[in-house]
């Protein structure tokens, strides 16, 4: 069944909010079926084809309003969508340390279990350096995973690119505020929050990685914008971009 213009406009608007293609297809197919039922009913009531289509458009509702209602529905159906501010404030601070605990702590415990005594030989010291390097890799992996994961969750909840940007920025803030230290020789691992931050290689790496993730989401959003063409041309795209 060909998609009516009003439904194609709903598709166009939903795509701009970052709603996934499966969800969009579901909404638009149901609206198209409903529109067709309305059109057939109008024809049975004696209207001509174009008047019946106009009647179906009116009864189905304004596409912008329908898209807004659908987005509101998507948001209401997830916890993150219902409480975005709370999620934004809490999750970036919790997720990275939680991941670190899950990945690093068992390794640390295993290492302590194997080496009962203090590090003595040169080999032991080399191993200790390797363990510390592993800890830092895990720390950076958790730091990158947090904004990528939370950003995609926010994106899928239909909160839009602005909320994704806010989530990435807040994750960067949380990463800057966190101080991680690992010393395998003294068997110490610590994670704390500190302020103000010094501009060093670590700070620059945090900003660069978060910027990269943000750029990825931005590019994905632009791609979705260009992929779905508005049925009436580019006018509405300009209206949206204003």
């Amino acid at each position, binding site marked *: 069944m060909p998609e009516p213009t009003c439904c194609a406009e709903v598709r166009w608007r939903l795509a701009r909010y970052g709603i996934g293609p499966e969800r969009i297809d579901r909404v638009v197919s*149901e609206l198209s*079926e409903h529109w067709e039922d*309305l059109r057939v009913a109008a024809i049975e009531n004696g209207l001509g084809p174009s008047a019946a289509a106009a009647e179906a458009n009116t009864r*189905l*509702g304004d596409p912008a309003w*329908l898209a807004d*209602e659908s987005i509101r*529905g*998507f948001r209401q*159906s997830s916890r993150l969508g219902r409480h975005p501010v709370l999620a934004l404030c809490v999750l970036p601070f919790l997720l990275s340390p939680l991941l670190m605990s899950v990945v690093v702590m068992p390794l640390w415990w295993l290492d302590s279990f194997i080496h009962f005594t203090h590090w003595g030989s040169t080999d032991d010291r080399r191993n200790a350096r390797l363990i510390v390097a592993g800890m830092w890799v895990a720390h950076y992996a958790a730091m990158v995973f947090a904004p990528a994961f939370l950003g995609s969750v926010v994106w899928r909840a239909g909160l839009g690119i602005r909320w994704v940007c806010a989530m990435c920025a807040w994750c960067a803030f949380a990463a800057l505020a966190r101080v991680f230290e690992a010393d395998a020789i003294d068997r110490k691992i610590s994670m704390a929050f500190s302020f103000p931050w010094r501009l060093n290689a670590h700070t620059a790496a945090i900003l660069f990685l978060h910027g990269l993730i943000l750029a990825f989401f931005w590019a994905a959003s632009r791609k979705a914008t260009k992929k779905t063409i508005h049925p009436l041309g580019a006018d509405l795209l300009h209206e949206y971009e204003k």
Partner: protein
Amino acid sequence: MAHGNPSFLNGVPELLVLELLSRREMYGYELVREIQKESKEAFRFGEGCIYPYLHYLEAGKFITSRRATTDGRSRLYYQLTAKGRKRRAELTKEWNRVAQSVALILGGAHA
């Protein structure tokens, strides 16, 4: 206060949908027709707005859907789940409480 005090009309569309689906499975267009028929056209709304409610209820596992072909047309039918029946009972109770309270006040005004 014994109960919370949500907006009076909160949950009304949800209650209407759950009530109609408790009778038999229906698709979106059919649901809208039933609401209009049974309310004697009292509710006039953009008919497409029924779908966000249906999707919200489905996400909450109050209803489920299945695609079926009737008269050569493919339709998405919605059915009530056990959780949906429970939710319908709660909403009906809440609605009766609100309606009785409003009736008491209006009755008082006319006394």
